[in-house]
């Protein structure tokens, strides 16, 4: 559990993170979305106690990070895969980290096995590819078998196999009941990985919602209908609390009702349907819509939906 309350970071008169409040709960993958420069990394650094908030608080399992009894057993973090001494071997890198929290050496071998770096364990990290470096960083995060895992842009620069591996890893970590908090600016990736979203733009919270709610909340999500009895259906839909707009190709776009409800209404009113299909916005479309709003109206629209 990670809880931010009014978290703010100012650099001079530039506000990098602006009054952020959110809770990251266990058992699911929470995606941390926002354009580059939105304040994701700064927020993560404040969670880890690396940067000091200008205002507000953030706690990990109810404590500030520096107050954790054995930090590696509670939080594993990958901020920057290149943040290691290139002259040190993969094994020594993990060994020196494990040693700080009294984690036994056999666990170092275990995590090397988990991320598939056995063959290069004695090789210096300098010669590692981006993907191998990312795996080594993840191995470091897993060392303490922590309940909370944080990854900052973990799929950046990875090949499809590496991306799939990380996605599977994050899903399984969450399935084990852990808290997984992962930042990305790649919407399509998050759509596949995350259950829940914290969306920020310009350091401000734009939305905190389940992925499905987030997408359903987009105006681009609707039920598409084609019918020869447009007026009858339109009246019935409006009566049922939905809204109707003409779409392309002579279709109607219905919002506020799901596919099943529209089908039932049509059946009930004896309306003949030629097409009944859900049109689902992609996460990217929903995101663009929301962030465009936030840019346009600045802080006035806080489209915060609670899951």
């Amino acid at each position, binding site marked *: 559990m990670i809880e931010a309350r009014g978290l703010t970071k100012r650099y001079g008169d530039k506000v990098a993170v602006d009054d952020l409040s959110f809770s990251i709960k266990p058992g699911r993958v929470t995606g941390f979305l926002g354009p580059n420069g939105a304040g994701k990394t700064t927020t993560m650094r404040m969670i880890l106690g690396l940067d000091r908030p200008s205002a507000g608080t953030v706690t990990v399992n109810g404590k500030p990070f*520096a107050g954790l009894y054995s*930090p590696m057993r509670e939080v594993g973090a990958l901020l920057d895969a290149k943040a*290691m001494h290139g*002259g040190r071997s993969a094994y020594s890198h993990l060994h020196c980290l494990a040693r700080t929290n009294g984690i036994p050496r056999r666990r170092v071998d275990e995590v090397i096995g988990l991320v598939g770096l056995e063959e290069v364990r004695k090789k210096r990290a300098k010669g590692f590819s981006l993907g191998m470096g990312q795996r080594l960083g993840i191995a470091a995060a897993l060392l303490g078998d922590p309940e909370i895992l944080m990854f900052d842009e973990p799929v950046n620069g990875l090949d499809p196999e590496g991306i799939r591996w990380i996605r599977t890893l994050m899903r399984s970590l969450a399935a084990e009941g852990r808290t997984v908090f992962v930042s990305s600016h790649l919407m399509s990736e998050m759509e596949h990985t995350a259950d829940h979203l914290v969306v920020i733009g310009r350091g401000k919270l734009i939305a905190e919602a389940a992925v499905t709610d987030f997408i359903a909340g987009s105006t681009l999500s609707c039920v598409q209908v084609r019918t020869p009895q447009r007026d009858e259906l339109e009246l019935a839909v409006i009566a049922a609390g939905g809204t109707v707009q003409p779409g392309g190709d002579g279709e109607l776009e219905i919002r506020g009702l799901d596919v099943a409800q529209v089908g039932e209404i049509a059946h009930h009113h004896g309306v003949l349907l030629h097409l009944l299909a859900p049109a689902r916005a992609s996460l990217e479309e929903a995101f663009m819509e929301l962030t465009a709003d936030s840019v346009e109206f600045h802080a006035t629209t806080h489209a915060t939906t609670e899951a």
Partner: protein
Amino acid sequence: MAALTTPQRPAARAVPAPARRPGLVDVTGSEFIKIRSVRSTYFTLIAFILAGIGFSVLFAAGQVSHWGNSQSGIGFNATTPTLIGVVMLGELIIVVLGALTITSEYGTGMISTSLTVMPRRVVLLAAKAIVFTAVMLAVSLPTSFAAYFAGQAIFATKHASTTLSDPNVLRAVLLAGLVVPLFGLLALGLGAIIRHTAGAITSLLGLIFLLPLLAQALPNSWYQAIARWLPGGEALHPIITTGQSGQAYSSYLFGAWGEFAVIAGWAAAALILGGWLLYRRDA
């Protein structure tokens, strides 16, 4: 790449609970792993040993050959020249190792990882200082003695050698081996303040070489008032001389242990300021 496995949550925790709250002992162990797992440590230490002993041997051999067959070196102060390499060349090399102990973490970004696994920052800096001191003492004291004995073995051919039982010789050899780690610690402190390898080393060289030089440009009475407080220049003389046979140092300086304490004070001040800044600033 080996076949990838997806971790399965074992029934029991994969990592046993800690016997105690991780602290200085654990971080010191970690820092020891760090310092011995990079090549630069070995390169700098070998360079230091070679410079310390090499200078002593070369100087002694040169001096002996200069005397030729006819003369002998009776009355010559044979102690100090065998220690100059350890202190003067040695400090140049060891300050690099001292600064790198922390600046390499800033250069690579490792500092974020280190502070994430050990958020109590002053503990991290203390562990670095402890490990650096221990490693340095294990190398610099034997090097100092080796340089001394190697030089004396050559001076002995001209009956010019000293022994450790001669007045103040043991003190000079000991202090030479002890003062070098202090310069390294001063560099470590500056590294924590400046967080950049080249910047830390440059400012350190300014402090130990340039500052004493600039001080000499001051009016004589001013210079004599501050010279004893500087971390270099004349202040090193009491440390590596025996005060015997015309090797007396200027009277406005402290004695050998006094000047040693001054340098220790500089190192302590740099470490304390570095620790405070490490604690205060964003990593």
